[in-house]
């Protein structure tokens, strides 16, 4: 088996009215994400990844530190983008969260407004390329965190993401240029599909169902 680029769950122009233009999605999914998949497949044999799930590869590459980076860069980015496409939708946005997710955010993060502020802050302060996350920590609580480049909370051992936003410049440069805070506001207020996030919360995170 090999890794594959999953199709977008919507058309490339589906988010254009919500701050993510068709060109961004075409490039981001068809070129950037695809390049990670191709590069990862190129490493399966030389790095002995055969038979392992994407999640296992990411976790092991993270534990290997600097030696694991060549694999983590590609495997992490493959996993990160699979989640990213899932948590956005043409019917995303708004402040009406499903009950279970809303209650959990209230309980663990002080409410939706406070969560959004923390999540935005994580994205703004991730210097250079990387991601901001909402994760289920090992103690079962929700937590906001950030990681550089292709890493993620699975590779760092921090927890299981249920929401992630890409803050590599390629994710927002055509739509927002240098103004990353506006991209993050737009993501939180117009793009996030909270139903998906609630489902991931109930499932205990995303299972990519991809393996080498």
């Amino acid at each position, binding site marked *: 088996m090999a890794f594959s680029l999953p199709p977008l769950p919507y058309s490339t122009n589906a988010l254009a009215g919500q701050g993510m233009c068709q060109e961004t999605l075409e490039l981001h999914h068809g070129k950037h994400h695809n390049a990670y998949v191709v590069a990862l497949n190129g490493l399966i044999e030389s790095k002995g990844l055969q038979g392992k799930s994407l999640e296992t590869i990411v976790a092991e590459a993270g534990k290997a530190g600097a030696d694991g980076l060549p694999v983590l860069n590609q495997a992490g980015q493959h996993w990160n983008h699979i989640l990213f496409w899932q948590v956005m939708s043409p019917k995303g946005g708004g402040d009406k969260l499903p009950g279970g997710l809303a209650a959990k955010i209230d309980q663990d993060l002080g409410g939706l407004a406070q969560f959004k502020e923390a999540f935005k802050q994580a994205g703004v302060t991730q210097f250079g390329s990387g991601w901001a996350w909402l994760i289920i920590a090992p103690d079962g609580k929700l937590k906001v965190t950030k990681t550089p480049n*292709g890493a993620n909370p699975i590779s760092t051992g921090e927890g299981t993401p249920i929401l992630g936003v890409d803050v590599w410049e390629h994710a927002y440069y055509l739509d927002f240029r240098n103004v990353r805070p506006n991209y993050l506001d737009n993501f939180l207020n117009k793009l996030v599909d909270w139903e998906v996030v609630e489902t991931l919360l109930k499932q205990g995170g995303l299972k990519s169902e991809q393996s080498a």
Partner: protein
Amino acid sequence: MPATAARRALFLGAGAALTLALPRRVFAQAAAPASAPPPSGPFTLPPLPYANDANEAAIDARTMQIHHDLHHAAYVNNLNAALREHSQLHALKLEDLLAKLGELPEGIRAAVRNNGGGHANHTMFWGVMGGRGGQPSGELLAAIDRDLGGFDQFRTRFEQAANTQFGSGWAFVTVTREGRLAIQQKPNQDTPLMEGGRALLGNDVWEHAYYLRYQNRRPEYTRAWWNVVNWDSVAQRYAAAKAGTLTI
């Protein structure tokens, strides 16, 4: 070019770029005005030493304008903000701040590393462009032959370093006081200055440096970049490095 002429050229370039860029896409944000606010700290944004379209053979004017007026300006502003409460550091030169990161108050170390590095790197970057490519000569070419396997091999290896820097970062040619050259890649806004070294030249491979024209095709950008390198400026930096007067 005298500073006033450079500033005039900057304004002309910015206006022209805006006119060209607008029909392509309606941006969510209006661009900030190019006029520099009064300095609110020890560091100021230097004007571009040429018009925004001077590097058109590799970098479009719109990218130059955003890159200088917004990205570089933000590094300067954030650096000044980090130093605001630390007046004892205001007399330090940028290269000394960066070489002594470990001695700075812990609370501002990351901010000085990122934003001071950003300020130094971009100032150097503007300074080594604005040319018409070609190749170096004399002592600099001899050093490239000696340390980097000749001009062709040097370019291949430098492009390789730039293309394989995963995520944001830079490719540099470092130069020692003895005139020795080496190729180095660094993440984010890290710089050889942090190790007390000197950059002879460097290419920015943050996506903001090339995304509007090249999108995901970084190797096309790093190949085209040679078209605008100013080898006279680089030769001056090389001579300054050997004389011990090269700063950032």
